């Protein structure tokens, strides 16, 4: 038996002694800062994680959770700040250093080599001999032991590409344990799992905790947090909002902290006058890039002259729904009907088909999908519409007509600086967003799909963008709006639809619903049609915990 496995074995003989010592800190982060370009991903983060605890970190997508944990794992280096592991200050230079310190991480997108076997993936980087055979032999024995101890069975000779995502995740956990990880960071571990697999994973957590290991769980699913964590830290926009003891909080408080409450901006709008149905979505199912179902059968209607807002904690399928309706992502199932015309979603040109049907789309990520950032403004102002006859016929493109159109858009939308020859990258975020909006609105679409219209946009531009959207509504257009800003949804929408875990879990009247009720809906608390199995499990789990605590 090798030294490492002996050490593990000894540890497994004395589980309770370590976990009871909860005063000891496994990890302490002090004033961590990290930025990518001008954007701060983490700002002055302080965090304490007790040894032997399950610590949750929640926040919306882009709140900086993953960046923070990548810093802890040595994948990124912080710009400033201190890290203490087990009370000692350390500078984590790279991942191998983090591994030496006993920190293992299970990434959201698995770090596995697809055409390698499980065994090869487990020993990669931890081979202790020049030849592979002895390392493999040792790993095979160790894997069998870990499999038994933690219920992590997986065929060591199977290729990763042949395994289910759940099993791939087991390999990731085994990889960390094989390297002797004492602190295990898991990034959105249940996002790709079925409820049964998730339940199994939580049982594994229990065993790990009993062995005195510390678990850091990154997620935006509040029910999981409530069910399995001891403490929970909330992050928002790169900052640490608060750390709470899980028992002393509740989902609606967490939801509020996550989404953040900001001043409700006054938007002047008259009463909606809905007409015919212009956009109809029926039983739409959509998967993301790695094949996980994100939209699980959504049906909705948008009428002429109304704004329908989709609210939800980000990552619950809103983005994928929007992308599918806009023709950027092929749905697995279901129908999209624009002005009575069903969209075929046959080839790669669904977006063009939708545009011809009278739909326009402002994508959530203007840099990635809305603009060619290195083009001049006039080029972006006709992007996607360059085949229109008014810009020249056949191969010919009339630069003059394009520039005239660009000038018209600049004037109408007050894009600053008013220079069509300026590179798009040199406009501010708000003005870039106006360039996209101007282009799509100028086409006078009957159905208008808007994602995150004011993300990263300054206050002045927000107002003008909101007014343009309201004006569209008053002109009798059907508008579907997705935004992470709850206030924006509430002030613009005539109807609010709440999405949770790929389903529509409720509909609300923005004038009657209060923030607390919306927060509960968004956290999936009072939903009727959620996953029964998961629900039952969580109830079970809470009951168990209570029973255990009572017994102690």
């Amino acid at each position: 038996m090798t030294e490492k496995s002996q050490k593990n074995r000894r540890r497994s003989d004395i589980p309770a002694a370590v976990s009871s010592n909860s005063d000891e800190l496994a990890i302490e982060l002090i004033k961590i800062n990290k930025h990518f370009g001008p954007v701060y991903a983490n700002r002055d983060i302080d965090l304490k994680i007790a040894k032997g605890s399950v610590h949750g970190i929640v926040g919306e997508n882009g709140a900086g959770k993953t960046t923070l944990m990548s810093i802890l794992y040595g994948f990124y280096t912080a710009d400033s700040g201190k890290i203490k592991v087990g009370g000692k200050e350390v500078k984590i230079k790279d991942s191998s250093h983090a591994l030496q310190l006993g920190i293992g991480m299970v990434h959201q997108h698995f770090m596995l080599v697809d055409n390698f076997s499980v065994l090869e993936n487990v020993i990669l980087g931890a081979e202790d001999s020049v030849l592979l055979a002895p390392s493999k032999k040792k790993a095979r024995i160790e894997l069998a032991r870990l499999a038994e101890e933690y219920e992590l069975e997986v065929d060591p000779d199977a290729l990763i590409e042949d395994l289910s995502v759940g099993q791939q995740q087991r390999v990731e956990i085994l990889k960390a344990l094989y390297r002797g990880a004492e602190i295990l960071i898991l990034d959105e571990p249940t996002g790709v799992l079925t409820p049964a697999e998730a339940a199994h994973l939580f049982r594994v957590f229990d065993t790990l905790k009993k062995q005195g290991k510390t678990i850091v769980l990154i997620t935006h699913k509040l029910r999981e947090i409530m069910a399995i964590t001891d403490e929970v830290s909330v992050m928002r926009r790169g900052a640490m909002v608060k750390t709470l003891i899980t028992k002393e909080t509740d989902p609606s408080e967490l939801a509020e902290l996550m989404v953040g409450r900001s001043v409700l901006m006054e938007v002047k709008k008259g009463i909606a006058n809905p007409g015919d149905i212009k956009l109809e979505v029926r039983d739409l199912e959509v998967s993301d890039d790695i094949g996980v179902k994100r939209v699980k059968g959504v049906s909705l209607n948008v009428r002429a002259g109304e704004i329908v807002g989709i609210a939800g904690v980000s990552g619950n399928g809103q983005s994928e729904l929007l992308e599918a309706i806009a023709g950027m992502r092929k749905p697995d199932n279901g129908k999209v009907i624009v002005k009575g015309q069903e969209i075929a979603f046959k080839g790669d040109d669904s977006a063009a088909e939708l545009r011809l049907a009278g739909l326009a789309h402002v994508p959530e990520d203007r840099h990635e999908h809305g603009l060619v950032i290195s083009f001049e403004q006039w080029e972006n102002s006709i992007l996607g519409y360059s085949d229109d006859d008014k810009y020249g016929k056949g191969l010919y493109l009339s630069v003059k007509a394009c520039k005239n159109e660009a000038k018209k858009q600049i004037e109408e939308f007050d894009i600053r600086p008013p220079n069509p020859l300026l590179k798009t990258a040199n406009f501010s975020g708000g003005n870039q967003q106006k360039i996209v909006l101007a282009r799509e609105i100028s086409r006078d679409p009957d159905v208008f799909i808007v994602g995150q219209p004011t993300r990263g946009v300054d206050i002045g531009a927000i107002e003008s963008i909101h007014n343009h959207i309201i004006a569209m509504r008053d002109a009798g257009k059907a508008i579907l709006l997705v935004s992470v800003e709850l206030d924006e949804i509430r002030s613009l929408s005539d109807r609010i639809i709440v999405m949770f875990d790929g389903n529509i879990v409720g509909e609300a009247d923005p004038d009657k619903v209060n923030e607390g009720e919306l927060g509960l809906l968004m956290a999936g608390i009072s939903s009727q049609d959620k996953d029964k199995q998961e629900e039952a499990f969580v109830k079970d789990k809470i009951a168990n915990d209570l029973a255990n605590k009572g017994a102690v």
Partner: protein
Amino acid sequence: MEIFNNIIFLLDSMIRLTVPLLLAALAGLYSERSGVFDIGLEGKMLAGAFGAAVVAYLSGNMWLGMFAGMGIGIVMALIHGIASITFRGNQIIAGVAINFLAAGLTVFLGQSWFKQGGRTPALPEGGRFLAIDLPFADALKDVPIVGGIYSELISGHNIIVYIAFAMVPFTYWLLFKTRFGLRLRATGENPKAVDTAGVNVNFMRYKAVLICGALTGLAGSYLSIALSAGFGLNMTAGMGFIALAALIFAKWRPWYVLWATLLFGFLNAAQIRLQGVELPYIGEVPVQAIQALPYILTVVLLAGFIGKAVGPKAGGIPYVKER
């Protein structure tokens, strides 16, 4: 017996012509398995051939020549590595630059040093690798069939030929049975997984690229101081590209590389043998048509037969850790 002898000669010639392709394709295999596409095999081979010929001519020592050839290959590989690994440049463009650099520099230096139109002077005694006879080659010569195969086909090549063929099982072993190989393959497939496992991705890629340089240098040395007795203008004549084609055809696997390069070597040998020969029904085939055979095959194979050859997944992409 006449036909048998002809076949033996043809195969013997095939083996000699396969060696530079085999070495270059294996060189490419190391580099590309680590995720660095290398279109500069040709240039590194050419530079290696030149370096080997110059040093062998000046020193009269074939071994010094060979090591010089490998050294030049390594230097060229280092340039490729710095451009495409450290500075995350486009690997293909860096490779093209290597090819131009080698093509220009060998002519320029050759002409200004030796004034023989870019060629190097004929090698002195001891400067060229000569054939070595394996034991009993002479004694077995007259045994029918087996004797001919042993004494003509297997025996009587220079040492680089044997090294080249021994590189195939060695590469297989290194790639699939050692820690180095596991990490190398993983780096070409998913560098992030390698990085998170605590292995330095760029360092792995440098190692692979330098091995590639040494092997292309050896391939070049073989051309100038073993197969011929001196460097000739552009003497690689596209062999680096054919090696690249063979590598893709072989799906980046060592044993397949052997078969693929033997096929190309055979066509080359056949091409030389068929020149001026009257074929039944067809008559004499123009030399140019026969010379084009290996290249036509390359196009056909690459376009038609290997539609599903999927290379290392991370190939061609510089590794960037932070977004």
